[in-house]
């Protein structure tokens, strides 16, 4: 990102900074701790609701751009049955505070997929346009399942995709303002921040290196998996074994912030009105590709596991999407019952290479 303005915000003033966000007319979405301890992103009305000390949420805040279910249009049938359509209302202006860099990367992926790669998805584009992203970089691995540093363009600090980014550095935050939307926020923080010295970037770089070293060491596995999968040089037995361990529950793709696939269904309010909705779908479910004839092109869990890995990691899709379909957030590691999460699949695919070579 060019022309990034850098400031310093004392950690003690974060509360005031968040308060200043609440003065804006935008809805503020921020991490909130539920009664039983889980942190999730939610609309807040007071600073005391916001939890700033958290790893990462199980459900990605990308849900505010890609809701698990949304109305595409509503219809009403006239006296002769002729339909009249109503488009959804314009989305609210929103500020999302506290996005981890992996989720910022996932949003960059979605921006490319839904907006830059034509045709433009107008529902996503309108929501995205109305949303300001305030990233919160990681000063330590957010969770023990994180592997963002192994992913292309990933790491504990975002290099792009945010409007404003806060990096915790001891008793202060480095504040990076990257866009016009970010400048609007910076205006609110004028009295709280002061310009940052260049040395602060070096301090952050040292901290970033340290965080990356603490993460899982699977970089070579991911790179090897990408090569093997693109070249289709994975032993079919490997996919068989991975498929054997797959429960076809769809958990990985429902939680994956990069997964974009959706289902479309009509709902009837009554005989003359209703809506078309789209909702998150999963290619790990057999019905995902089931045709009207009953034929299922990817009928086995292993063929679906292979497809999932191919779609996310093959260079063929990298060419279309501009980056690989994994940001290293580790949510699949948390959710997968069969221990065939992304790092595990990469390790097994790499092992498959070794076997094939010998």
């Amino acid at each position: 990102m060019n022309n990034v303005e850098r400031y310093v915000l004392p950690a003690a003033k974060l509360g005031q900074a968040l308060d200043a966000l609440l003065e804006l007319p935008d809805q503020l979405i921020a991490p909130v701790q539920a009664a039983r301890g889980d942190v999730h992103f939610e609309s807040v009305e007071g600073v005391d609701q916001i939890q700033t000390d958290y790893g990462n949420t199980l459900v990605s805040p990308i849900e505010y751009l890609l809701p698990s279910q949304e109305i595409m249009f509503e219809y009403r049938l006239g006296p002769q049955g002729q339909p009249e359509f109503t488009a959804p209302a314009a989305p609210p202006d929103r500020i999302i505070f506290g996005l981890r860099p992996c989720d910022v990367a996932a949003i960059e992926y979605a921006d490319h997929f839904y907006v830059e790669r034509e045709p433009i998805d107008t529902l996503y584009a309108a929501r995205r346009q109305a949303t300001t992203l305030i990233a919160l970089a990681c000063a330590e691995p957010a969770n023990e399942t994180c592997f963002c540093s192994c992913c292309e363009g990933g790491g504990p600090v975002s290099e792009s995709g945010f409007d404003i980014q806060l990096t915790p550095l001891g008793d202060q935050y480095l504040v990076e303002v990257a866009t016009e939307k970010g400048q609007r926020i910076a205006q609110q923080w004028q009295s709280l921040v002061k310009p940052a010295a260049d040395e602060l970037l070096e301090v952050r770089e040292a901290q970033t290196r340290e965080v990356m070293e603490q993460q899982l060491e699977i970089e070579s596995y991911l790179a090897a998996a990408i090569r093997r999968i693109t070249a289709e040089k994975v032993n079919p037995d490997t996919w068989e074994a991975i498929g054997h361990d797959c429960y076809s529950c769809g958990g990985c793709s429902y939680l994956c912030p990069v997964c974009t696939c959706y289902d479309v269904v009509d709902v009837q309010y009554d005989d003359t009105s209703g809506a078309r909705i789209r909702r998150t779908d999963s290619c790990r479910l057999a019905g995902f590709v089931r045709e009207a004839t009953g034929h299922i092109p990817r009928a086995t869990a292993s063929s679906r596991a292979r497809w999932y890995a191919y779609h996310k990691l093959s260079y063929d899709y990298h060419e279309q999407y501009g980056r690989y379909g994994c940001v290293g957030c580790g949510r699949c590691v948390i959710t997968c019952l069969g221990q065939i999460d992304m790092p595990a699949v990469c390790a097994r695919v790499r092992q498959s290479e070794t076997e094939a070579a010998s």
Partner: protein
Amino acid sequence: MEQVDHIPRPAIIESIRPETPTEKTFALRFTDGEPFNFQAGQFCMLSVLGKGEAPFCIASSPARTDAIKVTVRHYPGGEVTSALHELTKGDYVGIRGPMGNGFPLQDFAGRDILVVAGGIGLPAVQASLLYLLEHRSDYRNVTLLYGARTPGDRVYKDDLAEWEQSPDIVCKQTVDMKGDDDSWEGHVGLITTLFEALEIDGPQTSAIIVGPAVMYPFVVAECRQKGIADENMYFSLERHMKCGVGKCGHCTIGDKYVCLDGPVFTYSEMQQMKGE
């Protein structure tokens, strides 16, 4: 920048023609007064509001832009095809599209055209056949080979009868079996058996092939035998689709979105596809 239209255009059912016990052809006229411009081989997403939306190929001439025809096979488990088959003249549907790439018929100018259709594949090539006949002088020989399971399973029987008499097109039909139709005096045998008596200039021929997937390897072998190059064999593929615009992810084969990159692919392209 091209945008996705999530909202369909309203259209009224002008007529419904039963083709077979399981297939009906719907003539649909747009009621918003806007033209519907499309290329032969493109498809549309057809809605019965409240029931759902599904992709269907457009089976009418691209020259007509105020109305289209689609032929729908009823699958008992299919919510949209079941709902469509219950509609009557004067009912409304929703249409999004056109979608997909279509057959590059302009590029075929000056060449021989071989159309091979199996069963419900004929509607997918119907717009192309009508276009070719409307621009007949742009092409050399035009041949249609059509195969169905039984005589009663054939769609567009009137068009086929007319084309069998037409000097503009060589039309050959076959059925896998006569079934209980003793009046059938035509050819009996798989569609590949029509290739034996076929005299075509292979290298000068572009082929359009649509039918059940099980038919493809055998038709490819026959076409190759006749000297038709893999890159001159055009197929229209079918997959489960939800959006039609390359987003919902259901129709992917390898790195291709059938809805966006296809549904028309050459055999050369199909050989490059990775995965099921």
